[in-house]
């Protein structure tokens, strides 16, 4: 149930499918071992994502420079594909690439805040869990990141 979100979270940090698989599997194993310490009644996802993000950061030490995120080629839409959402339709191909490049130039913690919030659609608590910081800190990182993106890729550009 949580496999995709765990894998994608790991992928955003380590940027390699192979490493992300390792990280996510290790994280599930750790979560399984530590399940006894998980407080019942608390949301499970932030707890799991904290473990995933910690594993991912640990595996990054000494690793090579991360790969850039790739855009899907088939965005023009294939027969039978669902119609793109209004959000997807609202952004042209060129602007997409420019935003993605600008995102990649952000400091890692700001970049990850944006990716968690908008690419993985995590809520504030989950984003904070991945970043390993308090909610307030995650929020201010995100807003700094958005300010910078607005500067780098002005909306009328």
């Amino acid at each position: 149930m949580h496999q995709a979100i765990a894998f994608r979270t790991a992928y955003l940090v380590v940027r390699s499918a192979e490493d992300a698989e390792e990280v996510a599997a290790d994280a599930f194993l750790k979560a399984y071992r530590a399940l006894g310490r998980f407080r019942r009644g608390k949301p499970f996802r932030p707890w799991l994502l904290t473990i995933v993000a910690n594993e991912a950061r640990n595996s990054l030490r000494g690793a090579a420079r991360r790969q850039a995120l790739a855009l899907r080629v088939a965005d023009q839409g294939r027969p039978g594909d669902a119609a793109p959402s209004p959000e997807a339709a609202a952004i042209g191909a060129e602007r997409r690439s420019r935003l993605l490049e600008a995102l990649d130039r952000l400091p890692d913690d700001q970049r990850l805040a944006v990716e968690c919030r908008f690419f993985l659609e995590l809520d504030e608590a989950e984003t904070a869990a991945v970043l390993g910081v308090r909610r307030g800190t995650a929020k201010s990182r995100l807003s700094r990141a958005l300010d910078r993106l607005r500067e780098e890729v002005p909306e009328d550009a």
Partner: protein
Amino acid sequence: MPDLERELRGLGESIAFPPTPDLAASVRARLPERTSSLWPRRLVLVAAVLGAAVVAGLAIPQARSAILRVFGIGALRVEYVDKLPAVEPRAALDLGPAISAEHAPFRLLESSLLGEPDGVYASGNVVTQLYGSPDRVRLLVTQISGHGLRSDVVKKVVGTTTNTDFVSIAGLSTQALWIEGAPHILSLPNAPDRLAANTLIWIQGNRTMRLEGAETLDEAVEIAQSFQ
């Protein structure tokens, strides 16, 4: 939604994430070696080697394990020996009959961190809370009421390759004992001796508490502090 946020969401939909692999399979592949139970294969191997050493030892009575040091903590007696005696490496976990917590012979302390155990077992005044299942144990918490047991009733036998440390736990007035590293032997009444994994022992009120299966001292202490 402000335009930029809307655009970022749209951008998110265009990211080519690699397909999510079958993580369940990767996790399963890791399980046997790393979390099978409190008795991973490595420990069984150690036990087999130890068993052989002791069998050899029995032929020459003088070579049998010598007790180097003994002390008590609560209701437990801890013996340090130069060689661990033989135990059945795969001795089944025998915790006594399952009971409901209300039928325990004394009021059990409960952990706010661990929640309700998956099973409660009693053997005399030794009550064990089990987390996990009997054949895949995650944690065992044993509570022994009173300190006035016969000193040989509950016994830990620790070899020279096991580390023991006295540690302080905030909120508890007495020190606790942390046993870690190579497995040690646990002797409980009415159960075969068995090898035990990392264990923290502490005294709380008139109970001797024993937690087996925490991976690190920090984890064990955190759990110990959650018992009330």
